[in-house]
């Protein structure tokens, strides 16, 4: 997929995607008038664990599940709301995503394709629900691996929270990842690395360095994400639609074991920089692999 972000500040009227709350993000990606929320706030399925620790719940547990259509095809969107507990994954919010993917899988197995999109905006496991957060992420990952044999699973990392922890693995399992310059993708957040490995390993306050390591632009330039778009709701929607139009990839990124072991072997850990990594990871020379038709 191509890089769709403009190289200059475009003086165009556009609607920021990043500024939208999760519900409106989901609505903006679906065909107009087709948005329908499942397990919404009025269903009031809240975290059973937060009140025990004196934390106020939110009626949707920070996760919106929406059905609708994308390019006329049935779709489901799971959108994480970063404004609640940093988008962290608890038993309920994570189970909503896992269950939505499992139901899409069930429909696909019956021959009815449902296009799944996950809007990642999360620091990972919600520590107040620790082991259940981890458990539901494992269930979500199982569902993505099974589902993407039938239909591309498309992930979006728009920012500003980014996508971290176990959820970064879920994002890496997606068939296609759409990112903005403001989106970050990494397993351990910079603060965690500084805390675990010391400031000489990484100074989390050095923002420029952090963006160079894990920012959306670098992820797209090193083919760890598929398309880089502007912070524009229409641009994100177009990128998601193009991803589905491509169909299921011949080999998902996480299946390309030999390719990545070879790339890793070409890296010198002592001298590698974000810039030198681009030469090894960029797929520009050898891309255009054949794609399977969409099931």
């Amino acid at each position, binding site marked *: 997929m191509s890089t769709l972000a403009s190289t200059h500040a475009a003086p165009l009227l556009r609607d920021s995607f990043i500024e939208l709350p999760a519900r409106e993000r989901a609505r903006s990606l679906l065909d107009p008038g087709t948005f329908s929320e499942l397990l919404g706030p009025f269903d009031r399925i809240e975290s059973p664990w937060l009140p025990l620790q004196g934390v106020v719940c939110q009626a949707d547990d920070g996760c919106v599940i929406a059905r609708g259509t994308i390019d006329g095809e049935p779709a489901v969107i799971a959108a994480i709301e970063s404004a609640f507990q940093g988008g962290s994954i608890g038993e309920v919010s994570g189970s909503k995503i896992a*269950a939505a993917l499992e139901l899409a899988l069930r429909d696909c197995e019956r021959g009815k394709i449902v296009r799944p999109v996950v809007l990642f905006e999360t620091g990972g496991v919600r520590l107040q629900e620790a082991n259940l957060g981890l458990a539901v992420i494992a269930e979500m990952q199982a569902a993505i691996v099974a589902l993407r044999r039938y239909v591309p699973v498309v992930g979006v990392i728009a920012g500003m929270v980014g996508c971290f922890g176990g959820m970064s693995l879920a994002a890496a399992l997606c068939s296609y990842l759409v990112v903005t310059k403001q989106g970050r993708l990494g397993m351990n957040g910079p603060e965690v690395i500084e805390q675990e490995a010391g400031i000489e390993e990484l100074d989390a306050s050095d923002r420029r360095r952090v963006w160079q390591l894990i920012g959306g632009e670098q992820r797209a330039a090193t083919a760890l994400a598929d398309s880089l778009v502007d912070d524009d709701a229409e641009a994100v929607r177009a990128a998601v639609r193009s991803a589905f139009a491509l169909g299921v990839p011949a080999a998902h990124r996480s299946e390309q074991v030999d390719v990545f072991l070879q790339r890793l072997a070409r890296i010198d850990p002592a001298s590698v920089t974000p810039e030198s990594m681009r030469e090894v990871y960029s797929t520009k020379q050898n891309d255009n692999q054949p794609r399977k038709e969409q099931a």
Partner: protein
Amino acid sequence: MSDTQLSRGARWFHALAGDSRSAAPVWSGDAPLGDETARFITVVPDPANRFPRATDNVVGLEQGWQLARAVRETIAADAASSTRRPIVAIVDVKSQAYGYREEMLGIHLACAAAVDAYASARDAGHPVIALIVGPAMSGAFLAHGYQANRIVALDAPGTMVHAMGKEAAARVTRRTVEALDALGETIVPMSYSMASFAKLGLLDQLIEGIDADAPDGAQIRRVQQVLCEQISSARTGSRNLSRRLESAAAQKNRAASIEVRRRLAEQWDAV
């Protein structure tokens, strides 16, 4: 490395599978188990690893991709056969590797590749069993063990499952380690103990009476017997993870996970 310095994962690999076919940091090899052959895989310390943040028994870039390779070569070996050999993940992983090189070079993808391989093996009909002999922490456990059909653990000091190391979790949640332990007694998912993990319906068997650091022959045979039972159970069960929500423990402590699925299914079909 002398025998006294062996990590638990290495010790149990030797006990169950003999010598590894591959070098550190990922050991992999086939060995008899019951009346068939099983693939055993573990992550071991690798003091000479070229990535300085990944020399311990942690899951870093090479560990993630090599786990994926070990699992995928097992899938490929049985692709034409009607029997799919069991895969036993011996779990003794302290954490994922924390380093700037790891983030830059995509440790999230390396770990996802291992998740993908184990999930694909399970979906292809390989009985995948996680045998927890040490810590099973966070992203490292997601990559190595959490996609298994069945999860069993030694009931021994040092075996634990959690989303974050205790000291780090205490810092992040602004609690003392003691307060965190106390919280774990009332809030089941916060606990580090294997008994609490079992209460969530996620553990298929806690194997008692085993010396995790120096098992004798009878104890090793006991663990092999448990593995055989779990393999046989996995072969007759579903290939997905739905079983995790079916136990009496899950009905009690994962009621919200079950309720979300039930009500979402109702509304899904009504759309």
